[in-house]
């Protein structure tokens, strides 16, 4: 009963607030011109500790979608299919990412967006429908009728906003074992010796943003995330296609917070409390011996809060 009361309260909260409410009073927004080199854009993302940025096309004076880790995965995929095209990859501009998408047959990422004054609930529905983990907030310049990129909202920011402002999250005490949240069946896992290219192919084929790494007893020992691809390219290691995923993870920067785990005894109250305090994008479910059982992503949590 408490669980239902909390879900109702959270849903009406999400319907009563809009995306603009989540934005701080003062914030910055980094945007790239589409004529910028991909490798330059990568350096700027890493320097600012961000993994995505809106693109702006100065020829059409329009917003041109978001640069995300999927774009970098496409570049690596393209390079693994065309190892002789190193020069092309090195001189690739952000405009050129669309051609790379076509060349490898990657799905054209639909650029969803939403007006800042629409409800948070609508923003969540759009993200869940398009399995996007972030959504640009777009308004229109009242003179030139061109898009204004006001900001980009992520699932993480929305869940953090809920956990900070919705005290009903405290009564979400039903254990995960009783909820149908997350994935606990046919989870693809790899070993530290698995070539990183195979892991990247898994990210694409399973359209997931992380692949768990287990040892011979199926104990979870690490995770390869889509954002790790940025360090792989930055380090220029993607040219060594035989690299193991264990070696690729050595490139991870020291400010990586680590992989979060939980058990089926945990509940959404403690999970949202952890999201309020730390930047986590998923939790791996393990048993008392540390064996991998499943994964619960921010999309899973949002889906449950909105639709269960």
């Amino acid at each position, binding site marked *: 009963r408490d669980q239902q009361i909390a879900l109702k309260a959270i849903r009406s909260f999400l319907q009563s607030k809009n995306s*603009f409410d989540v*934005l*701080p*009073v*003062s*914030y*910055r*927004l*980094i*945007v*790239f*011109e589409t*004529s*910028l*080199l991909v490798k*330059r*854009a990568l*350096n*700027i993302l890493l320097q600012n500790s961000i993994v995505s940025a809106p693109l*702006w096309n*100065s020829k059409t004076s329009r917003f041109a979608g978001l640069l995300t880790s999927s774009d970098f995965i496409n570049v690596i995929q393209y390079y693994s299919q065309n190892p002789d095209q190193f020069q092309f990859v090195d001189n690739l*501009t952000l405009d050129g990412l669309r051609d790379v998408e076509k060349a490898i047959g990657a799905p054209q990422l639909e650029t969803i967006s939403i007006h800042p004054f629409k409800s948070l609930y609508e923003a969540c529905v759009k993200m869940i429908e398009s399995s996007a983990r972030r959504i640009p907030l777009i*308004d229109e310049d009242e003179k030139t009728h061109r898009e*204004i990129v*006001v*900001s980009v909202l992520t699932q993480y920011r929305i869940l953090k906003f809920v956990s900070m402002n919705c005290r009903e999250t405290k009564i979400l005490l039903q254990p995960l074992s009783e909820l149908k949240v997350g994935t606990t069946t046919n989870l693809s896992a790899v070993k530290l010796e698995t070539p990183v290219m195979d892991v990247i192919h898994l990210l694409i084929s399973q359209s997931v943003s992380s692949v768990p790494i287990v040892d011979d007893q199926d104990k979870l020992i690490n995770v390869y995330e889509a954002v790790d691809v940025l360090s792989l390219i930055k380090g220029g290691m993607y040219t060594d296609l035989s690299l193991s995923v264990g070696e690729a993870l050595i490139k991870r920067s020291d400010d990586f917070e680590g992989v979060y785990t939980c058990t089926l005894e945990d509940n959404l109250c403690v999970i949202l409390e952890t999201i309020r305090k730390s930047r986590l994008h998923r939790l791996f479910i393990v048993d008392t011996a540390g064996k991998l059982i499943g994964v619960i992503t921010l999309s899973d949590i949002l889906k449950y809060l909105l639709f269960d």
Partner: protein
Amino acid sequence: LATTSIKHNTLAVASVIRYKRKYVTQILYAPL
């Protein structure tokens, strides 16, 4: 207008604009 020195053939410019009741520092990175 705020600017950075040109590095690696890239220039960044920024300006703080008011959007409704909040302030956005819009930063644009462009190639030389």
